[in-house]
């Protein structure tokens, strides 16, 4: 009965979404306050029923109801309870349900926190979110129902969750990513509502900003966690692979970043309105496109079995309707949106625009690289893959252009800015970073470097420059506050806005991340070796001794553990234990790497396969500063979060429009 109730709740939620998509919108055009008021209750009802549906699917997993096909395919009696619960979103149907749950959650949050918005705008935004939700729920009900049963007879035990997913990474990574993707639907809905109503002004930008911020924070966290997860779970020490699924999350991130900055210009200066709206539409469109890529199997084409052309077709039609309609609305309505702001060539506006252009170029490059195999096959019939070097080649120069821009933008003014000041402001930070880089370079072991090229040196130099300039900017602001107000340092700190601190943290995060990427790609040591018990190798200043193997049996797998003793230059010793796990239900093997994590370097050991005479192939890696890239990601997310808390977003009831009371 439980799965049927879950299914029924899903259908009810679907009905409420339809009502939400139609009635309040109708109310806005007919000026019917009752219909407009309905948006609130409908949004709540939609959330309640989708939550019930989700809870009941989770319940089916918890009680091992293998009569449900989805449960039988992704769970097993021996699976620990925590993984039974997280297995809910371990495959297509359940993750889609989670997607809809998060979407409804966002819609509810918008309804709740935006009570100070004019009622008609709020109703319109919620209506548009309802329509998006209708599309996804239709998809769920039509071709991806997680509540289908094996009847009349069902298996006694399930097929088990994929061992790769039996991990903490799975618990947090997909929901974060989805929250980010779906979060852009808020900015998207605001943009469409603004186009339809023709009210695209500074207050519109102010309403959109916190929502865009938060979505961006989730996406940043999702990408960071995904990269970290791939690093420790996939067994080979890589942290970014440029594969279609990663690219699918990177593209909305890049456009979302552009959107954040463009929204700032629109709010503060009333410029770039039409461009901002287009970015808001694009950020969500790329999120949807990502979903399509991941789920249609168009690009990860192998999985003949996972690929259901019907599903792919459904998402394609959905994409065409949502994105196509919004771009038509844009093309027709955007001319009504005019920007009157005047600014000089050298001003914060222009540099932010340039930064936007660079981010868009980056997005287009990723898009092209991701789709090129498809284009190639469609036009010539040949099969190709686009290798990571393509992306690296493009991204390195783009980063080198973005970093100095990031340093300069906060230093110059809106409208117009004198250039003379800049040299004076930057000479010390540039000099400092130059000395720092030179010092590091001289002190580092040059023989260990892989390929030290000019791009890497410049990247580190610019990143340190950015970092130092940020600190100098903060200190400068505090000093001038003190001079002007005679207040304490604490007062000075309090006088600056959270938006400013958010910017500092996020930009510092980028600097740290870039340094991490640059250093780890140049100074990593990575070797595959044959090790027999008693063998000793030396690498990157560490000694590794293969002591032997031991076997252990766990609830749902057996593990073969290698004991490898590591000795550092100071003579300290410790044991690292990489594992090879065998999961009997799926008869699959997994490599569980041993990682000795540190702020300045990671040691990474992975067990390959058994060779002759008791020897094993082992991959040993020493990865300096690898942690910095995730640390940078977390800092960016934290900065975005802080900026969202800025006081000015907690606006009072808007009375200017005369509608909201």
């Amino acid at each position, binding site marked *: 009965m439980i799965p049927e109730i879950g299914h029924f709740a899903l259908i009810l939620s679907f009905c409420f979404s339809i009502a939400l998509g139609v009635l309040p919108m109708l109310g806005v055009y007919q000026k019917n306050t009752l219909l407009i008021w309905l948006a609130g209750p409908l949004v709540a009802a939609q959330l309640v029923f989708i939550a019930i549906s989700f809870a009941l699917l989770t319940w089916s997993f918890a009680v091992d109801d293998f009569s449900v096909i989805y449960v039988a395919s992704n769970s097993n009696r021996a699976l620990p309870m925590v993984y039974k619960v997280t297995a809910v979103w371990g495959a297509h149907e359940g993750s889609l349900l989670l997607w809809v749950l998060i979407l409804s959650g966002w819609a509810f949050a918008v309804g709740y926190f935006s009570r100070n918005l004019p009622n008609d705008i709020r109703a319109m935004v919620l209506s548009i979110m309802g329509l998006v939700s209708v599309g996804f729920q239709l998809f769920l009900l039509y071709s991806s129902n997680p509540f289908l049963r094996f009847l009349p007879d069902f298996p006694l035990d399930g097929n088990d969750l994929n061992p790769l997913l039996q991990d903490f990474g799975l618990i947090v990574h997909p929901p974060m990513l989805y929250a980010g993707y779906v979060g852009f639907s808020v900015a998207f809905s605001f943009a469409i509502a603004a186009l339809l109503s023709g009210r695209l002004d500074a207050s519109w930008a102010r309403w959109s900003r916190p929502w865009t911020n938060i979505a961006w924070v989730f996406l940043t966290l999702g990408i960071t966690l995904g990269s970290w997860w791939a690093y420790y779970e996939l*067994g080979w020490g890589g942290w970014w692979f440029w594969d279609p*699924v990663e690219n699918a999350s990177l593209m909305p991130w890049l456009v979302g970043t552009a959107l954040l900055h463009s929204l700032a210009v629109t709010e503060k200066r009333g410029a770039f309105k039409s461009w901002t709206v287009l970015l808001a539409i694009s950020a969500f469109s790329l999120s949807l496109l990502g979903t399509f890529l991941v789920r249609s199997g168009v690009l990860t084409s192998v*999985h003949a079995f996972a690929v259901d052309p019907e599903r792919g077709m459904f998402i394609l039609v959905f994409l065409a309707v949502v994105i196509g309609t919004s771009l038509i609305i844009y093309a027709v309505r955007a001319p009504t949106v005019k920007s009157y702001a005047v600014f000089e*060539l050298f001003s914060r506006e222009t540099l932010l625009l340039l930064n936007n252009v660079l981010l868009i170029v980056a997005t287009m490059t990723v898009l092209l690289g991701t789709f090129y195999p498809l284009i190639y096959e469609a036009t010539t019939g040949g099969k*190709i893959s686009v290798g990571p*070097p*393509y992306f690296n080649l493009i991204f390195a120069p783009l980063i080198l252009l973005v970093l100095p821009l990031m340093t300069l933008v906060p230093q110059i003014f809106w409208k117009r800015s004198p250039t003379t000041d800049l040299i004076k402001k930057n000479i010390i930070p540039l000099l400092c970073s130059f000395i720092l880089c030179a010092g590091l370079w001289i002190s580092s072991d040059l023989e260990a470097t892989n390929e030290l090229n000019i791009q890497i040196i410049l990247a580190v130099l610019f990143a340190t420059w950015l970092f130092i300039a940020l600190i100098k900017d903060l200190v400068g602001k505090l000093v001038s506050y003190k001079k002007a107000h005679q207040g304490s340092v604490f007062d000075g700190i309090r006088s600056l806005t959270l938006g400013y601190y958010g910017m500092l943290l996020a930009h510092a995060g980028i600097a740290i991340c870039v340094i991490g990427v640059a250093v780890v790609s140049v100074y990593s040591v990575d070797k595959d070796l*044959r090790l027999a018990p008693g063998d000793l190798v030396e690498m990157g200043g560490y000694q590794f001794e293969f002591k032997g193997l031991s076997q252990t049996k766990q609830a749902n797998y057996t593990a073969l553990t290698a004991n490898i003793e590591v000795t550092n230059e100071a003579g300290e010793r410790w044991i690292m234990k990489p594992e090879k796990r065998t999961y009997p239900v799926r008869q699959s093997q997994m490599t569980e790497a041993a990682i000795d994590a540190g702020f300045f370097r990671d040691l990474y050991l992975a067990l390959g396969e058994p*060779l002759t005479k008791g020897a094993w192939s082992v991959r040993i890696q020493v990865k300096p500063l690898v942690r910095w890239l995730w640390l940078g990601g977390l800092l960016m997310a934290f900065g975005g979060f802080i900026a969202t808390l800025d006081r000015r977003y907690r606006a009072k009831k808007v009375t200017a429009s005369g509608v909201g009371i």
Partner: protein
Amino acid sequence: MNAVHKKRLIIVIVGVAVFSAAAALVLYALNENINLFYSPTQVAEGEAPVNKRIRVGGMVAEGSVEREPDSLKIQFTVTDYENSLIVHYDRVLPDLFREGQGIVATGKLDDKGRFQASEVLAKHDENYMPPEVSDMLKKQGANASEAAPKL
């Protein structure tokens, strides 16, 4: 030409310059970094270029895996049931590499017609798999995106 027009002109010129520089770079990068896929038959018929990064795929022939006793060097035969190709490799193999499994290898064909692989991906013969998982497996080297090698 007044100031506004001049400003606009400069913005447009800078924009066009950035875009065309990017476009040129992209075209160059794409040209350098696409790896064409060949089947053992195509290689046997001489369609594949020598000393250029390509990818080949097929099944690992039963009983063809040979290891050198004191190193990681390994060689095996990849077949599409019509022709076969010997692949050399000297790194750790993916978890799912087995005889009789489908694989995709990236590397170069040397003058003697041997394939020197720099990366080997094994395909997964599991039945049902969600796209996210197949993607993760691919990263792990357990899967091959381009999967469908033309057998």
